[in-house]
């Protein structure tokens, strides 16, 4: 808060602190309509379209989790593929033991959250760049360990059992709904998390870690919670991935390409905003669908765009939109509403140049 805002507010005497300039109910209603329309998609579009959307939902879920890690908690993980892979394998293991893969999905997600604790213990004392590569090494280690178990497919992987009984059209629809449910749950969880007390701590860490620490924020605990939540989210996305691909192949689920995609989507869309990964996912899907027939080109171009955005538009595409029209789909900050003046912005964010 600048001194000027502070004094103006005191002089005016009457002001309120609100979450949003507009009524939140409208945003909520809008979100609900979008979700309902998306849920009806299997009845109105071809299965090819829902398959593409499933992919988009997986990427959006993972990117939102990565955004929570890097954009808020300052944890740049290059090892989130560990949780994508673990999620896929937990679904596979439960399916082998007779559980329906769809019912296994929430269990797998929780399992990933539990697995995140020992992994966090291993990497928590490393910072920035070293944290990044250490998580990568961890993910590779998890892959190497999983490949040793031949009962779950060893190094080659295996098809996911328990899905053969479904009618193909119904299976496509179920997969779509599962992916949609995971994404909506992930976004809702992140939104609520950021509006909570923890969200305030995270925003403080994002803006200035030293200041957050010295104000008594429990930075370590907040980071651990975020790591666990991101593990759950990426694990759920990995579970959906296993179901949508009908098989689990170790090098495909544990590839660092997942984390690269999460990072690029978040950077391009806008780091540190909930809207960013959504915008980034749209860009990603457009690029991927356009360049799908050119093999590795989509990752090359995607990477170049991400480098460009990281250097020249640090708040991403959403940042560009935000600075023009000043709208927020997911209000997690605070606005100072002065009764005499037009509403003034008061978001807990350091000035970015």
């Amino acid at each position, binding site marked *: 808060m600048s001194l000027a805002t502070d004094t103006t507010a005191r002089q005016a005497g009457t002001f309120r602190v609100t979450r949003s300039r507009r009524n939140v109910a409208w945003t909520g209603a809008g979100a609900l309509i979008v979700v309902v329309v998306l849920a009806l998609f299997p009845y109105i579009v071809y299965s090819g379209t829902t398959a593409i959307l499933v992919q988009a939902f997986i990427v959006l879920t993972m990117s939102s989790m990565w955004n929570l890690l890097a954009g808020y908690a300052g944890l740049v993980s290059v090892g989130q593929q560990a949780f994508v892979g673990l999620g896929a394998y937990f679904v596979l293991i439960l399916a082998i033991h007779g559980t329906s893969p769809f019912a296994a999905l929430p269990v797998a997600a929780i399992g990933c959250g539990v697995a995140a604790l020992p992994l966090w213990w291993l990497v928590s004392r490393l910072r920035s760049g070293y944290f990044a590569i250490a998580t990568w090494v961890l993910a590779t*280690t998890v892959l190497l360990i999983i490949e*040793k178990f031949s009962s779950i497919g060893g190094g080659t992987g295996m098809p996911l059992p328990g899905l053969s009984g479904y009618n193909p059209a119904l299976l496509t629809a179920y997969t779509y709904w599962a992916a949609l449910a995971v994404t909506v749950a992930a976004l809702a969880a992140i939104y609520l998390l950021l509006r909570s007390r923890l969200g305030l701590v995270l925003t403080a860490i994002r803006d200035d870690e030293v200041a957050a620490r010295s104000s008594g924020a429990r930075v370590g605990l907040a980071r651990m919670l975020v790591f666990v939540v991101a593990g759950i989210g990426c694990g759920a996305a990995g579970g959906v991935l296993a179901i949508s691909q009908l098989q689990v192949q170790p090098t495909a689920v544990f590839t660092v390409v997942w984390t*690269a995609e999460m990072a690029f989507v978040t950077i391009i869309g806008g780091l540190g905003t909930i809207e960013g990964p959504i915008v980034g996912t749209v860009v990603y899907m457009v690029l991927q669908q356009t360049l799908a027939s050119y093999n*590795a080109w989509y990752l090359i171009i995607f990477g170049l765009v991400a480098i460009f955005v990281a250097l020249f538009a*640090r708040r991403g595409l959403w940042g560009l939109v935000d600075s023009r029209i000043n709208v927020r789909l997911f209000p997690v900050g605070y606005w100072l509403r002065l009764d005499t003046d037009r509403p003034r912005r008061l978001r807990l964010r350091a000035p970015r140049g």
Partner: protein
Amino acid sequence: MAWVNAIIQGVLIGGLYALFACGLSLMFGVMKVVNLAHGDLAVLAGYIAIGIIAVVHVPVLLSFVVVVPVMAALGYVVQRTMIQSALDRSVLTTLMVMLGLSVVIENGLLQFFTANTRGIGTGLSLITASFSIGSQIQIAYLLVVIFATAVVVLLGLQFFLSRSKYGRLIRAVADDREAAQLAGADYRHVFGIAAAIAFGTVALGGIAYGMYSQLNPTAGTDTILLFAFAAVVIGGLGSLWGTLLGGVVLGVAQQIGAQISISDEALAGFIVFLAVLVVRPQGLISRRAQS
């Protein structure tokens, strides 16, 4: 005897890992850049060498003379443009730019050279020749040469950093950038020099790896970067000789793992890495030495 052999091979391969690791260590020590594209740059250097050997028909060893300066120049340019502008923004931007660079190089190589593996100078007697000690221990000359190269590079780096003018500048900037700037050092240029050295050593490592094993576009991240990083952490940050020790420990762990079961080679190395991370996170040699 098989175990002794595993340890000897491990020590020698450790030289290769140290060669990978010293560039990573230098860039982190001087400009706090964790070069996520380190392994991909090594593979890129290997492919440049393959290209030069195929087109100009120079002897394999001569490829070093061309590739190392080319990579060093590339290092200076990349540092002065892309990495410097990322550093001016934030740590996170730097990491993202390096990750982007890694993905772009890897997929670029995949696009132009396909996923097939290629060796450098495959079949040359220089590369396949070996001598034996006793009946069970067979040592490839190539590994001895690589180990010796690593030691020479580390000695050279040590000498350069402690004695030369640019070495002093690099240490000054690494210690306190503002103070060095006040004393008239152009830290951007110094960063460029450090990056050039790092890229030069990584080129050496990449070509050596292409001779010792096979190059493919994904080798950069799957093996080189992660092994280099493990060697740096095991040895201890900021110590050049720690890097060699880290490489050797990693190499020995891998060879002993391979002795137990051939599929456990990489896993054994990473488990030792994780154990060091838990028991002694500052690394085996934790001296806060130069760079």
